[in-house]
């Protein structure tokens, strides 16, 4: 069988402290494990030296001419993956939270053809190690998880995880429509309603090594309202292309 072409998409907004390290780790992994994951960094209009690092170290990247936010940045990666005919696209954080060793675990279920999307999850095992976010945020994640369960009947343990792999069909789907804000939990509703198969595998995440998280504490209430409303709206949308 022809080897699947895999693209790791790394959205980066002011990640000068981490981006080089993240890229190096992936390249080292490629060398040591005989894999050839392609990397594409999306520089989401960073105002620091991220672009300088990307250029200096020849890291494949796209510099957005304006800041789009996480959804718009990641979608740019999906559009690129679609245009360049990649089989699998992996969303990966540039801030050192995600470990490249687990990429294999989340792409395997997709390569096997059994699943369309695979989430790298922090909460699937009750006694899982690694960084699991603050208590307040875990409660929020639980609530979102229950909402998704109510509206789709499927339990997703880590709906806000930004570490996930998708196959060609979803790459196409995401390149045409992708939520601009808080894309992960919202996208599961439409995918499940379109009968895509979603798998969760356990991964270990690290605490951020530098930079600032894109979700601030004071925005949490707005976040919950926005996500809940989006989940509800997404549940009553009409789709033309149901699988």
């Amino acid at each position, binding site marked *: 069988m022809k080897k699947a072409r895999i693209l790791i998409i790394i959205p980066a907004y002011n990640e000068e402290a981490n981006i080089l390290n993240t890229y190096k780790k992936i390249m080292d992994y490629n060398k040591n494990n005989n894999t050839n994951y392609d990397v594409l960094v999306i520089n989401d209009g960073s105002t620091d030296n991220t672009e300088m690092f990307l250029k200096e170290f020849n890291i494949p990247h796209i510099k957005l*001419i304006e800041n789009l936010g996480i959804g718009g940045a990641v979608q740019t990666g999906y559009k690129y993956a679609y*245009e360049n005919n990649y089989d699998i696209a992996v969303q990966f954080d540039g801030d050192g939270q995600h470990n490249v060793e687990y990429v294999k675990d989340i792409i395997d279920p997709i390569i096997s053809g059994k699943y369309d999307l695979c989430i790298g999850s922090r909460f699937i095992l009750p006694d899982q190690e690694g960084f699991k976010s603050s208590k307040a945020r875990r409660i929020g994640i639980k609530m979102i998880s229950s909402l998704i369960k109510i509206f789709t009947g499927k339990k997703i343990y880590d709906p806000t995880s930004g570490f996930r792999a998708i196959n060609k069909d979803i790459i196409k789907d995401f390149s045409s429509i992708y939520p601009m804000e808080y894309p992960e939990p919202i996208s599961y509703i439409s995918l499940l309603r379109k009968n895509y198969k979603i798998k969760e595998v356990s991964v270990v995440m690290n605490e951020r090594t530098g930079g600032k998280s894109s979700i601030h504490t004071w925005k949490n209430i707005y976040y919950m309202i926005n996500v809940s409303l989006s989940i509800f709206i997404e549940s009553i949308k009409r789709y033309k292309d149901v699988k």
Partner: protein
Amino acid sequence: MSNNLKILAIIFLLFIAIIITLFVRKNKISIKYSIIWYFMCLILAILTLFPNLLGLVTNFFGIQIASNMVFAIMIGGLFIITISLTIIVSIQKEQIKNLIQEISILKNKK
């Protein structure tokens, strides 16, 4: 409603209609979005010229003072205009996002 007030109201509405027309002429408002403003001016002009019409509607809904009815109509009209503006902004946001993405992808193609 006194005749003087009627004249003032009509002049005001004409003024609004002319301003809208000037902006359309300068391509600062597109025809599509000017229509709702003309429509609103027209309704208010009709109500000014035929106050009895307003009385009929006011009585029908059991509203005490005719001017309250005018306010209600205007607020309704403004609601429609603001909602349509929200729709336009949302559509444009999506279009601009797509443009930014496509241009950025093209720019970085070597």
